[in-house]
């Protein structure tokens, strides 16, 4: 069955008791067992270990990614944390894309480093740099493609090959493109990570995360951490996310079309120094993006001539666009990574990976593209 059919039906069957067309919200801590001998015969004991509403979402996401199974989490960060805890032990080494989300960088350098895990931040857009970072004890390679906010892409197939040789697990943060546009398992990756907060939900209603595993063995390791550390997704969040997933392709297509039009508009604007959007022919990795994904997504960044002062002026004066963190929802958002999402990354590290001070990040939503461009146009005039 096609993606659009599966995004609606996968994981969800009408409730056998009442016929309810939607999965009920099982807002219940515990599940009554028919007898001692039949313990777990219906599949559920306690909602930390598993919940029917949450399982429906996990089944849907596993299906959409083409994976063996999925584990969901309270946030995208807890999904990343669970991935690291599942595949890294004290004394192990992990290679992390140097342009990973600021929160991931903070988790590695300030938290997991305390437990004897070594990290190398490699340029995920440079296969040789990743290969050169491999050590004898490398157990995990984590890439994010396109990366937040630089939009740098990693070659999923090539890095999966490197990971395979190193005996390491390759986890791809697939939040920006979702399985609708990019399916890491078809390119050889082992895990796909999502902040479901973004395009899966799509409406700024929930925070959540997911890890989809290519094989049952990998899934069992993630599931063990999910249950042991207990950073679970709630039934309410799972239910809302289940609804969001049903319009994933429609939103992605429209938001991406809007992003393309905005990128082209900005590229032609005299006050804009540069634009980074994988769909533009001028984008350094346009060829790679076209090869490994079927769409370019709805995230982009640009630099206003005049640096930080000009960028701030633009963001403070813009209408329609909302100055807020988060991304991927139907509302268009504008962000200044240096002061907002990536404030925890040291300045030298930011500069090294390309998060320049004047970088303005756009998460393009579902509004009329004429209104979005009109608002940018007005704001640019005031710069």
């Amino acid at each position, binding site marked *: 069955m096609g993606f659009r059919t599966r995004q609606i039906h996968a994981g969800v069957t009408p409730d056998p008791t*009442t016929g309810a067309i939607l999965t009920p919200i099982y807002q219940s801590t515990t*599940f009554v067992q028919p007898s001692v001998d039949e313990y777990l015969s219906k599949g559920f004991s306690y909602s930390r270990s598993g919940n029917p509403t949450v399982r429906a979402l996990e089944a849907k996401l596993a299906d959409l990614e083409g994976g063996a199974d999925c584990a969901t989490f309270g946030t995208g960060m807890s999904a990343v944390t669970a991935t690291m805890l599942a595949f890294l032990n004290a004394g192990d080494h992990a290679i992390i894309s140097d342009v990973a989300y600021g929160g991931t960088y903070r988790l590695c350098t300030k938290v997991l480093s305390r437990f004897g895990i070594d990290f190398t931040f490699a340029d995920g857009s440079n296969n040789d740099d990743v290969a050169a970072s491999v050590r004898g004890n490398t157990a995990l390679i984590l890439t994010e493609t396109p990366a937040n906010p630089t939009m740098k892409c990693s070659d999923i197939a090539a890095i999966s090959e490197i990971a395979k040789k190193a005996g390491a697990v390759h986890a791809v943060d697939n939040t920006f493109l979702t399985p609708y546009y990019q399916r890491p398992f078809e390119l050889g990756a082992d895990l796909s990570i999502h902040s479901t907060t973004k395009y899966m939900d799509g409406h700024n209603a929930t925070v959540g995360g997911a890890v989809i595993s290519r094989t049952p063995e990998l899934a069992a390791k993630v599931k063990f951490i999910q249950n042991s550390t207990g950073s679970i997704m709630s039934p309410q969040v799972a*239910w809302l996310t289940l609804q969001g997933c049903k319009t994933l392709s429609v939103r992605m297509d429209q938001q991406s079309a809007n992003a393309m039009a905005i990128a082209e508009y900005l590229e032609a604007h005299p006050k804009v120094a540069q634009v980074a959007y994988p769909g533009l022919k001028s984008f350094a990795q346009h060829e790679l993006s076209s090869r490994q994904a079927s769409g370019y997504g709805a995230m982009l960044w640009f630099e206003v001539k005049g640096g930080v002062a000009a960028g701030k002026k633009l963001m403070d004066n813009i209408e329609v666009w909302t100055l807020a963190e988060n991304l991927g929802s139907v509302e268009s958002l504008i962000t200044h990574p240096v002061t907002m999402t990536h404030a925890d990354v040291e300045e030298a590290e930011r500069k090294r990976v390309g998060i320049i001070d004047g970088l303005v990040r756009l998460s393009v939503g579902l509004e009329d593209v004429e209104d979005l461009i009109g608002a940018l146009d007005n704001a640019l005039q005031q710069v």
Partner: protein
Amino acid sequence: MSDFFNFDTLSLHAGQTIDKEFGARATPIYQTTSFVFPDTDTASSIFNLERGGHAYSRITNPTVSVLEQRIAALEGGSAAVCTASGMAATFCAITAILSQGDHIVASSQMYGGNISLMKNTLPRFGITTTFVDPTDIGGFRDAVEENTRLIYGELIGNPGLDILDLEAIAEIAAASRIPFMVDATFNTPYLCRCLDYGANMTIHSVTKWLGGHGTAIGGVVVDGGNFDWGAAGKYPTITEPYAPFQGINLWEEFGPSAFATRIRAEAMRDFGPSMAPMTAFLLLQGIETLSLRMEKHHSNTEQMLEFLSNHDQVSWVNHPSLPSHPSHALARKYLPKGAGSIVSFGVNGGREAGKAFIENVQLASHLANVGDAKTLIIHPASTTHSRIDAEALVAAGISEDMIRLSVGLEDIRDLKADFETGFRAAKRAADA
């Protein structure tokens, strides 16, 4: 299970059968519009009321059904229908049996929404109401006319807190073969099961003490199953063929739950004020602690009454549990566990003092709801009735110095301390 378990057990278990698929201990929230039919025969039999089952959440929903059955069990009724608000419950209950040209005899001391419905809205559809002082039993008998089809009242009246003599009114209603409907919001089935005293149906704003946490708006109509619609012979909506369902006769088919079925088949289908599944879930959770909360509401109310009765800044205190209250004997009869947690009292110094009191208490929330776990207060003369002159206030049973208090579950020592602050401010305003 309704007749075999006691109240507290029912408040936890009635209406819920453990989820068949996974055994979920809590009631699943069926947040769905529709239900998939196994086959067309089943579909048509559900639509024709030939069998139970869920089709569309405006009519029935499994989560809402649990709440309906739980409240019916607590009230000792035959069935219940939940609605989007308490007012929707009253409206649906009345319109299920009354039509153009029909007449209601109702207590004059009721929630303002009920009064307005009967005084202003229902007359537009040809349904008129005669209001009678709830303490005037003879007045009820005299007000019944040839076209009277309903007697309606609240057990604990508003705002005077007069107690309706249920048995006396029920006797008048029974003699004329007219059903007696009681808005039991202020008492809940914990304090009094009105059906046991001859009422034929009850209404609740579940928003109030039943839900108890100020989180969700909802209403319910409980069918007592104890009114003989056939013998009365003047309720065509119940006893005559109902065209939309192939001429079904609800009284013959559903007997003691014919009234509830009419509400389901007509009001929920045609007016559509259905309760949301999430609301039902929240209200169900509230009912699980109904007894515990009501006990605490009443122990706090008793202590608050003692505190207010002995306070220099208080000119009068009104509550049916006080021997000075005209309904004290009726309160002891119908409400032996407590006469509700609504108290009204006067602040020395009139309108300005009352206003100063309200503005200077901090723990008690200044708002228009009642029955929350939190203590709520309002000064009717400066808020809900601020545009009314002193004379009209008296006619409405409200004095300028009156404070209405819904006693919550806080530590009574903290409430008293909070009120002391308010009274000091009231004294300053009165002295100024």
